[in-house]
């Protein structure tokens, strides 16, 4: 949008100053909790108790981080968050790969090889994104038990695959819908079959949507708590569950600095993804919501 700003010199300048003031105020509002977590995660506990949470640390210590990572008591065992961090990785990586591949193939079929009833199938898959997961808790526990993967990482991968498919399919479907059908036709005349077209023509042009889907799935699955707490045990519980256990473990002194270090550790992977590929992150959120 161009030529919106008023060009009146004097009143305009005051207005612009107010505008920037408001914008900066909001930036502080959004940054404050992060700052507080960060600042207090490097203070000794004593300083937090007596001092001010807004203050910069007077004594800088990384002890809380080390504790949160490998020593703190999470639930019953004093293991730190480390094992759970790996649990999360072991759960997120396969789930993201599986769902992305399936989503891409589904999107391809749904746009370029449609058949009667395909739209209904898609609608049914899409509805799956939105069901309250509470509905799945009881039966999923039984299905995982039946399959012998209750409490395992693979059980969580399966659950996340099931509920990630709808969005992944939606992303790829919307992306491939805009992919020129004439290109598919040209390839068919050149003699390319179903998979050749997919791997040689479609996939090389799918970079942006793959990034979006991977980021979307990564953040969602990493940040999940409900499935992790319901279907995970020590060998499979993800980071979010461990963080909650760490923070809410009753008894003893509340080690706020350790809690904060833990919270940042739990947020770090998604924050890094967000910082590295913020542009795509926004696009992913948008295509999930606005276009969807």
């Amino acid at each position, binding site marked *: 949008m161009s030529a919106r700003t008023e060009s009146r010199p004097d009143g305009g300048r005051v207005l*612009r100053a107010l505008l920037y003031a408001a914008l900066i105020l909001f930036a502080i509002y959004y940054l404050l909790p992060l700052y507080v977590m960060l600042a207090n995660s490097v203070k000794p506990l004593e300083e937090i108790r007596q001092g001010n*949470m807004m203050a910069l640390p007077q004594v800088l210590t990384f002890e809380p981080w080390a504790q949160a990572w490998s020593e703190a008591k999470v639930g019953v065992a004093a293991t730190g968050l480390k094992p759970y961090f790996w649990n999360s990785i072991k759960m997120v990586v396969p789930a993201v790969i599986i769902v992305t591949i399936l989503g891409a193939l589904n999107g391809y079929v749904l746009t370029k090889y449609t058949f009667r009833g395909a739209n209904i199938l898609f*609608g049914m898959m899409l509805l799956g994104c*939105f069901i309250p997961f509470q509905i799945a808790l009881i039966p999923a526990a039984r299905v995982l038990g039946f399959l012998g993967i209750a409490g395992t990482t693979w059980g969580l991968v399966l659950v996340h695959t099931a509920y990630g498919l709808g969005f992944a399919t939606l992303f790829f479907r919307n992306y491939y819908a805009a992919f020129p059908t004439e290109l598919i036709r040209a390839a068919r005349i050149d003699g390319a079959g179903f998979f050749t077209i997919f791997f040689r023509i479609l996939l090389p042009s799918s970079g942006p949507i793959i990034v979006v889907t991977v980021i979307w799935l990564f953040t969602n699955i990493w*940040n999940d708590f*409900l499935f992790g707490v*319901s279907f995970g045990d020590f060998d499979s519980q993800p980071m*979010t569950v461990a963080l909650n256990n760490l923070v809410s473990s009753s008894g003893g002194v509340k080690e706020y600095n350790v809690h904060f270090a833990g*919270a940042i550790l739990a947020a770090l992977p998604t924050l890094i993804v967000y910082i590295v590929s913020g542009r795509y992150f926004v696009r992913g959120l948008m295509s999930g919501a606005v276009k*969807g």
Partner: protein
Amino acid sequence: MTAKGRLGALLPKLILSPSFVIVLIFVYGFIAYTLYLSFTASTMLPNYDLVGLRNYERLWQLPHWWLAVKNLAIFGTLYIVVSCALGLFLAILLDQKIRGEGMLRPIYLYPMALSFIVTGTAWKWFLDPGIGIENTMQQWGWDSFQFGWIKDRTMAIYCVAIAAIWQSSGFVMAMFLAGLRGVDGEIIKAARIDGASTVTTYRRIIIPMMRPVFLSAFVVLAHLAIKSYDLVVALTGGGPGQATELPATFMYSYTFSRSQMGVGAASAIVMMMMVFAIIVPYIYAETKREPGQ
């Protein structure tokens, strides 16, 4: 498609079938199972004796459930209305050809990357009168400053809303910003030639054009609100007492801690009905819209 052998015609369906089978079981099978359980006398373990609508009757007689629904109404309304208002406001501010927009936008948006558990942990502490904002203000010399909502039965639910709005409003801002950027510049020029001020142009022309964004934001926020579970667990644990219970936490505690699986299942079904009432018309419109072939 030309008849290129039966396999050629079958392949697309074959490709789609694993996903569809998974969805069929994990979504529709599970809905059916939970629906069935909600009509049974299940307690700690599933039990297949049908008891008709008794669980639903019990559910709606429980003050605990009523509290959860009332909380959802308060939380949901605040969450949706404030997030939309704040998001739109920020988007309009950012749309004034701001220097440094590229830096501000990610700052507003990053909370969306966080887990609700992290958000809850941060805000739990921030809102705690002993060490959080109240303590800070008093240390800075504002001795009469009080902010103890999180310990207050009637006000605690607003704390949940505050934290949730902090997390989601940046995302709503991004949606509106994309909407604003999509407005045809010539329409704005036309409005200026008609003599409309900036405020009038927004109020009368641009904001009304944001209707589809309002709708999308509503759908996204509403279904997030109904599903909200992690934030409450991390922020208040449902307390003080039961003051911040939401249907999602209610379902979990009745099913798994209180061994009333039938009632839990019934509450899950009610939650699903609420979500579907919002989402089904939206999905219907989405699948009607043919992909641009």
